[in-house]
């Protein structure tokens, strides 16, 4: 009797569900990442036609304020429910759970195609942003920051979606609430945010802190390589927790949890 290894399981799901990214949800994700960059490029072209240029630091502002703090969380909030949570809601999960494959590998396998799709558009957007200017030496760090945070945030939202009935709401509160609120709390708490690691990798935006952020605490620093490792490991831990949750929770034909 054959059975699937964890690696086979992840590969099978990533390949099997891969075509799903070319549907509406996938193109919405691409538009969310590309729209702000495209808009900035259009504005920049309009300025150039009048012999002007965008203010210095515009690209950095778009990166930190739009891509990292708005687009990336929205991406995760849209993509994660298309993962294993979707099978739970559409009652197709029993079809997967009755295969001789490790149940704990299913969430990551289902999320991998969305991660790859989102990462591709994030890289394209970051490269597009580079056209507006900025230190080319920082480009790898920026790409690493966004892709690393995308990996972590996608797994984080997937975990909350699998753990709580209103998981997406809790995830939104974390990504849009806590991530911004933490700036006025004691500095060490910044390490419990994706934003901290993005800024550690992509370069601090400390110089751009304005009057509205006067309450902000001093920023703590993490070495860029360590920030990337932490984002990667955090993602792995969140996927593992998703896997453990699925493995340990009885899921019946109705898609709901049962008390075993």
């Amino acid at each position, binding site marked *: *009797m*054959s*059975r*699937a*290894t964890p690696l*086979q*399981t992840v*590969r*099978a*799901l990533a*390949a*099997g*569900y891969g*075509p*799903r990214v070319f*549907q509406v949800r996938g193109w919405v994700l691409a538009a969310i990442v590309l729209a702000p960059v495209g808009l900035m490029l259009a504005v920049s072209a309009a300025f150039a036609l009048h012999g002007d240029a965008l203010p210095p630091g515009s690209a950095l502002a778009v990166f930190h304020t739009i891509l990292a703090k708005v687009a990336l969380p929205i991406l995760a909030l849209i993509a994660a429910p298309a993962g294993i949570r*979707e*099978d739970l809601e*559409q*009652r*197709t999960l*029993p*079809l*997967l*759970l*009755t*295969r*001789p*494959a*490790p*149940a704990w590998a299913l969430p990551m396998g289902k999320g991998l195609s969305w991660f790859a799709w989102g990462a591709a558009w994030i890289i394209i957007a970051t490269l597009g942003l580079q056209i507006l200017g900025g230190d080319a030496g920082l480009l790898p760090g920026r790409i690493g920051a966004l892709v690393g945070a995308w990996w972590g945030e996608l797994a984080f939202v997937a975990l909350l979606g699998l753990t709580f009935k209103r998981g997406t709401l809790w995830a939104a509160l974390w990504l849009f609430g806590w991530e911004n609120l933490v700036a006025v709390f004691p500095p060490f708490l910044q390490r419990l945010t994706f934003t901290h690691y993005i800024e550690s990798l992509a370069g601090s935006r400390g110089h751009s802190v304005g009057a509205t952020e006067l309450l902000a605490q001093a920023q703590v620093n993490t070495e860029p390589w360590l920030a990337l490792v932490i984002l990667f490991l955090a993602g792995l831990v969140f996927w593992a927790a998703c896997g453990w949750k699925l*493995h340990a929770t*009885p*899921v*019946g*034909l109705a898609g709901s949890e*049962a*008390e*075993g």
Partner: protein
Amino acid sequence: MIKLDRASLRYGAVLGLSPTSFELPDGGGIVGLLGPNGAGKSTLLQLLSGLLPPSGGTVELFGQAPFRNPEVLARIGLVPEGDRLPVGLKGRGWLRMMGRLSGLDGAPLEAAMAKALDTVGMSERADLPFQRMSKGMRQRMRLAQALLHGPELLILDEPFNGLDPEARLTLMALLRNLADGGTRVIVSSHILSEVAQLTDRILLLFRGRLLAEGGISEIRQLLDRHPVELRLTGESRALARWAVEQPELVAMALEESAAVLSIRNPRDFLPRLQSEAAKGGLPITGLDPLDLNLEAVFQYLTKDHA
């Protein structure tokens, strides 16, 4: 092959299956899991297919507990109830994924897919997206995924629901072939005649309890013993005159243009009624069985048990 020892399942405070014990030996054949809606059929199938662990007692398939156990899951195939398939995927691609999740790959996977699709008659249409397949085609694809890895035990939950008569007969023939080939098939249904066409071995469930295990002829006998109600529409007085001469008649009520008969042994009574009507000897325009269904039998059975 299957052994339940006082296995029960609770959904919170609700008892889905009372402590149940039975054994099914190795080997092929079809077993019907029979009971009205809400009897606990799906609950039992979920225990057998390893989706849910029992709240009490033990469930063993091939000597092991099936819950999250790949060694057991590699030997069973499940066709769940309902029209559930992932949206936005094509049949063949999805089937390939399900095969890989069973540890198949390369040439063996392609051969298994070809065999499963051929068995269910979907070889030519497997490249369609699920949303462009008919209900019957989607049911065949669900069956194909369950057959892909050559299971020794095939579990089908209400597989005939929503199928047209032709698809129903095709599926029945397919299940008989599989059973003849050595696969043990468990089919749940709330329709007695469906199960009767497939097998004589049944498990009777009612309100979360296993009432009986055995031959379908015993159920037929219970049906015969239990008076059933029939409404004959037509000239009520003429119908009544004919009915009082029948030995199966237990009670009768006359309506304006119908006679409601309470009769025993419907299998003797109905052919005679049909024959008389065909000869033109009965002014009958309609026949409605009022309680000639499984629910009535089960109510009768539970009264017997009480």
